[in-house]
C-alpha cells in the first residue's frame, strides 16, 4: 500500500516533467524567437531611450534628456495630435461603417459571396498600390474625389495639399480597406441565433429595436475585439500616411505643415533620417505605454457594455 502511494507521486511528477519538456520543446520556436526578437529588444530599447545614439558611434548615456526634449518638441506634439485624431475618428468610423456594411451585405440578395469578395478585395491589394491610387484619386485637379464632391455640390478640399485635410485624406484611404472588419462582423451576424429575432418579432419589436436589444449585445464581444485591434492599428499607423505624403526623391514626408505626420512617421524620421536613435527609442516607449493604457481602459470599460454567451 505505502509503496503504491509513494510510487504514484513519483510517477505523476515524472509524467509532469516530461509534459513540461514536451511543452517547452513544441513552444521552442516562439520562445527562442521571443527571447531574441522581443524580450532582448524591449530591454535594450529601454536603454537606448536613455542615450544619444546615432547608429555609427557608441551610445552616450544622457538619462531622461530625450523624454524632456520630447515634451518641448512641437513636432512631437503635432505628430501625437495627428495620431490621436486618426485613432479616435478612425476607430469610430471603422466600427460604424464596417458594421453597416456587414448589415447591408447580410441582406438576402443573390450573389452575396461576390459582393463580399469585392468589399474585401481592397484589403489584400498591396498597400503601396492603395497609396498611389488614392493619391491620384485625391488629386485636386485630376482626381475623382473632388469631382464627385463637385457633382454633389459639396465643398472640395485640397486633401493632400492642404495643411488641415491631410489626416482626413488618410482616413478616406484606410476606410476603403474596412473589408477585414466587415467580414468579421458578417460572420458574427450570421452566428446570432435566429430564434432571438423571431421571438422579438412576435413581441412586436421593429428592426431598430431588434438591433439595439439583440444584434448589438450579441455581437459585443466581436465589437470589443474590433475596437482593440483598430485602436492599436491606428496608434501605430505608418504606411498609409507615409505613402500619401511622400515627395519625389524620397525626401522627408509628413505633408505640408506636417499635416499627415503621424507618431510612427516622426519616429521613423528620427531613427533613420536624423539618426537620433535614442530619441526614437524614447518615442517608441511612450507609444508602448499609451497603447497599454488605452487597451486597459477599453478592457475595463468593456465590462459595462459587452455581453458574453449571448445574454
Amino acid at each position, binding site marked *: 500500500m505505502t509503496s503504491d502511494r509513494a510510487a504514484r507521486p513519483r510517477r505523476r511528477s515524472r509524467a509532469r516533467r516530461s509534459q513540461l519538456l514536451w511543452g517547452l520543446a513544441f513552444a521552442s520556436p516562439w520562445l527562442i524567437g521571443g527571447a531574441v526578437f522581443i524580450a532582448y529588444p524591449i530591454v535594450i530599447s529601454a536603454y537606448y531611450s536613455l542615450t*544619444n545614439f546615432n*547608429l*555609427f*558611434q557608441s551610445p552616450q548615456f544622457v538619462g531622461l534628456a530625450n523624454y524632456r526634449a520630447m515634451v518641448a518638441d512641437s*513636432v512631437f506634439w503635432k505628430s501625437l495630435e495627428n495620431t490621436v485624431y486618426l485613432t479616435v475618428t478612425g476607430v469610430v468610423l471603422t466600427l460604424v461603417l464596417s458594421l453597416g456594411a456587414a448589415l447591408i451585405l447580410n441582406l438576402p440578395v443573390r450573389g452575396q459571396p461576390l459582393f463580399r469578395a469585392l468589399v474585401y478585395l481592397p484589403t489584400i491589394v498591396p498597400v503601396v498600390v492603395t497609396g498611389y491610387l488614392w493619391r491620384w484619386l485625391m488629386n485636386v485637379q485630376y482626381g475623382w474625389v473632388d469631382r464627385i464632391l463637385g457633382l454633389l455640390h459639396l465643398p472640395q478640399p485640397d486633401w493632400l495639399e492642404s*495643411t488641415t485635410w491631410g489626416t482626413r485624406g488618410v482616413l478616406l484611404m484606410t476606410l476603403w480597406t474596412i473589408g477585414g472588419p466587415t467580414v468579421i462582423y458578417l460572420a458574427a451576424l450570421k452566428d446570432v441565433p435566429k430564434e432571438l429575432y423571431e421571438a422579438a418579432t412576435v413581441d412586436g419589436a421593429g428592426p431598430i429595436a431588434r438591433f439595439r436589444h439583440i444584434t448589438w449585445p450579441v455581437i459585443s464581444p466581436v465589437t470589443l475585439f474590433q475596437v482593440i485591434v483598430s485602436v492599436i492599428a491606428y496608434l501605430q499607423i505608418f504606411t498609409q500616411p507615409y505613402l500619401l505624403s511622400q515627395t519625389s526623391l524620397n525626401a522627408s514626408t*509628413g505633408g505640408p*505643415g506636417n499635416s499627415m505626420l503621424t507618431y510612427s512617421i516622426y519616429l521613423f524620421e528620427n531613427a533613420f*533620417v536624423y*539618426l537620433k536613435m535614442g530619441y526614437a527609442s524614447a518615442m517608441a516607449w511612450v507609444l508602448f505605454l499609451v497603447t497599454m493604457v488605452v487597451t486597459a481602459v477599453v478592457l475595463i470599460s468593456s465590462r459595462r457594455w459587452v455581453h458574453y454567451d449571448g445574454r
Partner: protein
Amino acid sequence: MYRKALHRSAMALAGTASLITLAAGCASSSGGSAASGRTTVTFDYLWTGAEANSLQQIIKQFNASQKQITVVGISNPDTQKQLASMSSSTGSFDISDNFGNNVGSWAAKGILAPLTSYMQAAGTRASDFVPAAMDQVTYQGQVYSLPIALHDFELLYNKKEFAAAGIAGPPTTTGQLAADIAKLTKVNKNGQITQLGLGNPDTETTMTTLGYVFGGTWDGAHNSTPSPQDAGNVAALNFYTQNITDKYGAANVAKFTAGWGQYGSPQDPFYTGKVAMVIDGEWQPVMAKENAPNLDWGVADIPYPVGDPSMVGTTQLTASTLFVPANAPHKQAAFTFMNYLTSPSVMLKFTLALGNLPARTSLLDNPAYNSIPDFSVWLQALKSPNVHALASQPYSAQYSTDLTTAFTSVMVGSVTPASAMAQVASQAKAYGTP
C-alpha cells in the same frame, strides 16, 4: 503511414533548407564578380533616367581606358538606402553621390572616408574647385567629398506674359519684382486666382534664396549655427506674404497651388503659363526644351533689394558631390574613379549632358557650354561674390525639414513670418549633437 509522413516532412524540410540557402546565396552576393585581376568598384548613384544613361556611358569609357578597375554603376535614387548601407559593417557600394550639405553631418559621424591623402597622392588640388563648393565638403580641415556638378538659381520669366502685361524687361530690384508680381497675378470674377506672378518650384530653395537676397543668413556668422530669425530671412518671408499670400488671400493661393501639375513634367505650372516667374536652377534649359519646347522664356539675375546694389548677383549654391563611405571595400580604387569623374574633360562632358554647372573654376568660361541656350546667366553667377551655400553641419537635415515646415505654414497663412522663425529657433535648441 508514419514512414510516409516522415518522408514527406523530410522532403519539405530539405526543400525549405535549400530554398533558404538559395535565397541567402542570391541575396548576400553583391553584384559583379571581379574579372581576372581587376578590382570591382560599385558605384551607386542617385541619378536616374537620362542622367543615368550619360553616366553609364562615362563608366563604360573608364572601364575601357584602363585595366585595373571595373566600375559597376547602379541607379538607386533612395537617399535613405545610402545611409542604411553605410551603417552596415561592409558597405554595398564603394562610391556614391549626394548633396554637399550632408557632408558635415556624415563626416561628424565618421561614415565618410577622408580624401585629403588620396588627393595629395593623385595631385588633385582643392583650389581648382569653386570655393563655396569646397567649403561645403570640407569638415574640420579634411576634405570628405569632391563636388562634380554645381547648381545655382536665377529668375526665369515668361516673355509672352511679360509682353501681355506691358512689362519691358525682367525686374532688377525687389521693388520692381513686387510691382511685376502685381501686374502678372490674375484673379477671375469668382475671386479665384488663374495666374500667379511668382511661383514656387521648391519651397525650401525659393525661400532660403530669397533670404540671402535680402541680406539674411541661415547658418549664422560662421556658417555653423542655425539662425532662422536673422532680419534678412524674416524680411524675405514678409516680402512673400505681403505681395502674395496676404494680398490675394492665403486660401486662394493654396487652392491654386494645390491644382498645379507635377514639377518638371509638361503639366508644370511654369510651362503651362500658370505662373509667370520662378526662381529655379540651371537644369531648366534642358528640361524646358524637353517638356515645353514652345515656351518663350528668359532668365535674369535675381533682383537685389531696393537701395542695396551690393547684393547684386546673390544666389544660392548647391553641390552634387561624390563620396567614398568609410565602410567601402575598395577605397583607393573608388578614389581613382572619382578623380577620373572630376577631371576637367570628363566633368565637362558629364555636366554638359546633364545641363548642370561644372565645379571646377577652369571650366566656367568653356565655350562648349554655349550649346545650351541661356546657360551663361547661371554659369557667370558662380563668379559673383554673393554666392551663398547652406552650411554642412550635423544639424542640417533636421533644420532643413523644420524650415520647410515653417515656410509652408507661412505660405498657407497660418502663422506670421516672425513667429514661424521664432518657432524654428526654439526647435533648433534641441538639435544638439545627435
